[in-house]
């Protein structure tokens, strides 16, 4: 398979890049000028694209690759990929579901605790020598609180399962109510926000869920409410979120994703009721390796004419 041409358009684990290099004729096209050069010389030979959460083929790129057969994404979210165009052109698409569900759910609980118990702030307090002047103030208990989950898919359900260990009440909003679920359903995001202490965004990013967390939802969550975003930055109207936090209309936020990563609104840096992470939901050695293997296995299956392991399209 060393002669099959593969184009890499998103940042991936070094191990994956190395393996792709070994097994295929790999072209790197993450950087726009790099990509332009590759397209100029090799567009007609590329049969596969490897994408990630930082970059995926839009309609224009798909059109520019006449021999494209498969897009294999090193992520579970595929908002960077024009799925409709892929369907039209008969291009297969795979992602990496399930291998990162636990990791993202673990981090979600970690973010909730970090915000409510001010763990990062406490760590700063000790490192700056302030503990010698006095104790840190009281924080807010997590156990027993009401958790609202926006999107009760694999990740949302995994978060709920962990929160049950903390005796939390769980409620959710989803496109459709899940009849088998034991959790309380709310038919709108605003109602969900009004009835929970901590709201977790765990749904896919689609045109419908763009800015699903808007001013109305933020106000409903309120001055004691906490927003946790482990979905995509564009789920949240970021300027609205920032002004709500600065004005005290929202109690706190734990954010792993932002609208224009790696840009983070600087107004948030001085706040003690926010925790800001650089999109590390799946960033463990174990998971990234498993994700890489899934990308490789999907590509191999495709080129050997076998069924794809985790197809989306």
């Amino acid at each position, binding site marked *: 398979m060393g002669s099959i041409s593969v184009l890499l358009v998103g940042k991936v684990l070094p191990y994956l890049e190395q393996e792709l290099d070994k097994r295929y004729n790999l072209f790197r096209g993450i950087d726009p000028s790099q990509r332009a050069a590759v397209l100029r010389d090799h567009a007609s030979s590329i049969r596969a694209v490897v994408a990630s959460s930082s970059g995926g083929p839009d309609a224009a790129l798909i059109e520019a690759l006449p021999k494209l057969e498969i897009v294999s994404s090193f992520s579970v979210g595929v908002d960077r990929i024009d799925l409709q165009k892929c369907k039209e052109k008969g291009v297969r698409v795979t992602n990496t579901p399930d291998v990162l569900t636990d*990791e993202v759910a673990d981090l979600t609980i*970690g973010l909730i605790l970090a915000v409510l118990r001010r763990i990062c702030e*406490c760590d700063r307090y000790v490192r700056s020598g302030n503990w010698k002047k006095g*104790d840190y103030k009281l924080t807010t208990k997590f156990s027993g609180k009401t958790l609202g989950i926006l999107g009760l898919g694999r990740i949302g359900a995994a978060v709920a399962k962990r929160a049950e260990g903390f005796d939390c009440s769980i409620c959710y909003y989803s496109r459709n109510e899940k009849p088998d679920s034991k959790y309380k359903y709310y038919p709108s995001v605003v109602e969900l926000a009004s009835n929970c202490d901590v709201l977790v965004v765990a749904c896919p990013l689609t045109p419908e869920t763009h800015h699903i967390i808007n001013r109305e939802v933020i106000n409903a969550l309120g001055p004691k409410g906490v927003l946790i975003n482990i979905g995509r930055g564009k789920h949240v109207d970021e300027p609205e979120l920032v002004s709500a936090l600065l004005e005290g209309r929202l109690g706190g936020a734990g954010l792993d994703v932002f609208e224009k990563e790696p840009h983070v609104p600087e107004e948030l840096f001085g706040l003690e009721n926010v925790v800001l992470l*650089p999109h590390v939901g799946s960033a*463990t050695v174990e998971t990234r390796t498993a994700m890489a293997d899934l990308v490789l296995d999907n590509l191999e299956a495709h080129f050997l004419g076998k069924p794809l392991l985790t197809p989306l399209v």
Partner: protein
Amino acid sequence: MAEEEKVEGLQQLKHENQDLPQVLVLGSPTCLQTLKQLYSHKFRFLIPNTSLDSLYPLTAPLSSISAVICSASFSLTAPVLRLLPSLRLVVTTSAGTDHIDLNECGCRGIQVAGAGKLFSEEVADMAVGLLIDVMRRVSAADRFVRTSCEAATWDFPLGYKISGKRIGIVGLGSIGMEVAKRLECFGCTILYHSKHKKSAVSYPFYNSVIDLAATSNALVLCCALNEETRHIVNREVMLALGKEGFIVNVGRGSLIDEKQLVKFLMDGEIGGAALDVFEDEPNVPKELLSMDNVVLTPHCAAFTSECIIKLCELVAGNIEASLSDKPLITQVKW
């Protein structure tokens, strides 16, 4: 009184209503303000003006005091107890009692009441939060985001998975059980060491902490500090835990050989540590202050606004029980 610490003197004690039972408050417990707000109509709280953790041996008020409220940061030693000849009750605002000379209390017939299981959920929550933080580098990542300049991309080191890992709990009391319950929902395998095997529990028991460490990805320390448990996490235990092993301590600082821990962290012999407690609080070994694989919190695992009111109710309840010769709510037995 030669063994006592030097003092400047206990000056005017603050007085409120003269008829109410007197309660001496030592060590500035966090709940003091709330205690005064809620119970000044029931008790006369005597609060030493001195900032030193010692008492001056004199005056009537001290010799007539029968009840003391004491925080975990005050050493209620035998010499101090001897300044209070009428003492019948010590109420500590902590779950731990390592700061109280229990033997002296026993000899004198002084009853001791603690916080019992009041903080167990809070402390367990914090223990899990600290475990996730150190293994997934949460605090380090938050620092990174706040201080990294406008980089083209985020390049941040990977963390370690928690779900499905083997977690060794040292001390399976009330707090240890709450930690176990939470981590079971992460699919973790729970193992434990305790003074005695607990027949009602199905988690695998390890008689030796070294054996527990050798088979665990992380150790969570939840036990009380006493003569048997001092430095229970020593050099051999840390070597057994290994280069990718993590330690969370929400018990007491002296459960760990702190100097050895610092050395191993500096040498990369251990993966990381999350510490809410230290051997000489509020002093923290300066080598730790610049490390990214440690999380440091100022002994605050129990302190939420929700538990403070409950703590005050418990303290007052124990004092009232003692005054009416009824059984204490959370008597410490040893």
